[in-house]
């Protein structure tokens, strides 16, 4: 018996991915809420926050936003069933993700060299590494997902999965949009 039994009007993949995105946002929401509560209680975190590298953070924001644009172009190409174009834009998106992680590595090593590690001196740094680290983990997962989708669409009826990958990638982007002002701009 075939899948056509179901009379679903909403593609199941899209619905599932939206639910996953909601679940992920609530996890990050919990973490950000904890950070905000502490931040309000300890005004002295301003001093610690002034040591984050706003320039690198801003460049990373730019990189990630650009990657969101390229993943939309990949989605658009997928709608028009242009496989090779979709694959090109997916590759660009993955490479931009790699650039993001590279800048992150530079940033982390700079901080660790200056003596700001996950264990201190201020709890601010614990939050900084936990939030951006958890986010970076999601960037890696998103890159792997996009890579797998890129392989799958080469042969086989999986073009609709480009949209699902793009949804996840946008979520990664949106979380960063919250983390950047909270950890880099707010001094």
């Amino acid at each position: 018996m075939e899948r056509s039994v179901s009379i679903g009007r909403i593609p199941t993949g899209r619905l599932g991915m939206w639910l996953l995105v909601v679940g992920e946002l609530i996890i990050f929401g919990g973490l950000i809420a904890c950070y905000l509560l502490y931040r309000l209680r300890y005004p002295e975190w301003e001093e610690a926050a002034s040591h984050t590298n706003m320039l690198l953070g801003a460049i990373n924001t730019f990189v990630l936003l650009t990657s969101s644009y390229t993943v939309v172009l990949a989605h658009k190409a997928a709608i028009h069933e242009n496989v090779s174009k979709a694959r090109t834009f997916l590759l660009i998106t993955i490479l931009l993700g790699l650039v993001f992680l590279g800048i992150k590595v530079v940033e982390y090593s700079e901080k660790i060299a200056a003596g700001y590690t996950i264990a201190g001196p201020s709890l601010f740094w614990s939050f900084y590494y936990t939030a951006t680290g958890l986010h970076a983990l999601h960037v890696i997962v998103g890159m792997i997902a996009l890579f797998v989708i890129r392989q799958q669409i080469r042969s086989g009826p999986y073009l609709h999965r480009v949209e699902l990958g793009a949804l996840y990638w946008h979520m990664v982007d949106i979380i960063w949009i919250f983390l950047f002002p909270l950890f880099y701009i707010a001094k």
Partner: protein
Amino acid sequence: MHKEQQSFIRKYIFSTDHKVIGFQYTIVGLFMALVGGYLAYVFRYNLAFPGESIPFFGDALDPKTYNGFVTYHGAIMFFWVAMPILLAGFGNLLIPLMVGTDDMAFPTVNMLSFWIFFLSTVVLLISLFLPSGPFDGGWTIYPPLSADGYHVKPSFPASIATGGTLFLLALALEFTSMIMGGINFIVTTIAKRTQGMTLFRLPIFVWFQNIAALIFMVSVGPVVAGAVMLLLDRTVGTGFFDPARGGDPILWQHLFWFFGHPEVYVILLPALGIIGEIIPTFSRKPLFGYRMMIYLVLVAAFLSVIVWAHHQFVAGIDPRMGTFFSVGTILISVPFAGVILSLIATMFQGKIRFTTAMCFATGMVAAFLVGGLTGIFLGSDVFDIYAHDTYFVVAHFHYTVFPIAILASLAGIYYWFPKFTGKQLNETLGKIHFWLTFIFFNLFAFPLFFLGLAGQHRRIANYEVFDYLAQEPFTTLRVIATIGVIGIWIAQFVFLWNLIKTLRSKEVAERNPWNATTLEWAADSPPPHGNWQTPPVVYRWAYEYSPENQTKDFIPQYVQE
């Protein structure tokens, strides 16, 4: 496509069939119930007869092991028994059949969720047998005790292989598995319903499962973040919950209970869904207030995420917040009273048949009422400040969780056993099983109310150290409670015997032995992979019992007229 031969491993181990996965969850859940029940027996025996050696275990428990056993008993019964059996087990077995589809929306994800759950079970069991001892910080994992506490804290790589770290890891894996499962339930229900199956024709069980999955998804996120923070506190030396480092242990309590309170409804709703299917079938009456029940539960779902701090009345929260959380908590009893009264109204003037499933269902409602009503006492901060951390609380939540996790699960097992195995459990043995379980459960849990009101605190390994609690009648009450636990154990052997006897017999059950109306009874017993030869079409709502001007006393959803 489902006709092709599958290897044993693809068919029974790494299967994507929702029924096999449902069985896998249920079997692991039942196994873990034995583990959790064994721990309960050991520490109950220790409480009743302090200092004496424990049959089937060994020497009397030292306080550290006692705390570890209590911790694991709570966590196992919640996350490795109630969740896998009620939510994942019954949900997987029934949702695709009840909505009339061939499988879950994402069968591969479904298989993955089970194996992640299995991994979490293995990690948990390993953490129980570490040389450094099991985790002993209570199932609520409160820091600073759970962050490093009074134990000597090992440095980074070694700190991973400690009971507490593995315990948290197991919990995180379990949450991941259940989130994935919940997404599957919701997508299946929304997008894969068969022709004619509108939302308000869905059986109440499907509604309640989906609302439970939704509550779980909304509430679990912050505690996942909290678990990551606590893991980092334990392993790499952050201080999120360490007051000496600027952290705040109360924050964990908020994160935990923001999830922990809704979690009670996450397991309650599937249980009420099971009861909501059984009671109309054996009362031969339509479910009373079907739509109202759905609306009430949606209200309760909303309220459930804004009442968490009633667990923290003595933790030093602002008294004005106490009032808010008291009012919210007591308010929750309104929608649930509506649901329970609707179930009772369904039975009113019905032609009730007390099969074993119906016995367990009505027993669940009766016992749960005791738990629900004492919950109103505890929801009031004035009373809670006195009763907090006493056995009154223990009695209260055993009167809620035992009916949910044990009585409702068993009701469901007796009810759907013929559908999924093709064989019917013996009714006589079933009734013996029910009465023994029910009587011994009350014998176990009711004395705890008296002990709690008299001031007996939880999490104390040996009450001989308190002169007041070491005298009569408290010692006798503790012995009675322990006899109750042993009795519950004996009752389960009757069940085991019934299972073996039934599975070995050659008698085949009818397709629809209870004359029920929902879609799963239209499938073969047991349903094949893919469930249907031709997909069923739905013509009516789920509870057409004793319709007027009809010769038959029920019309199934799949019958046109």
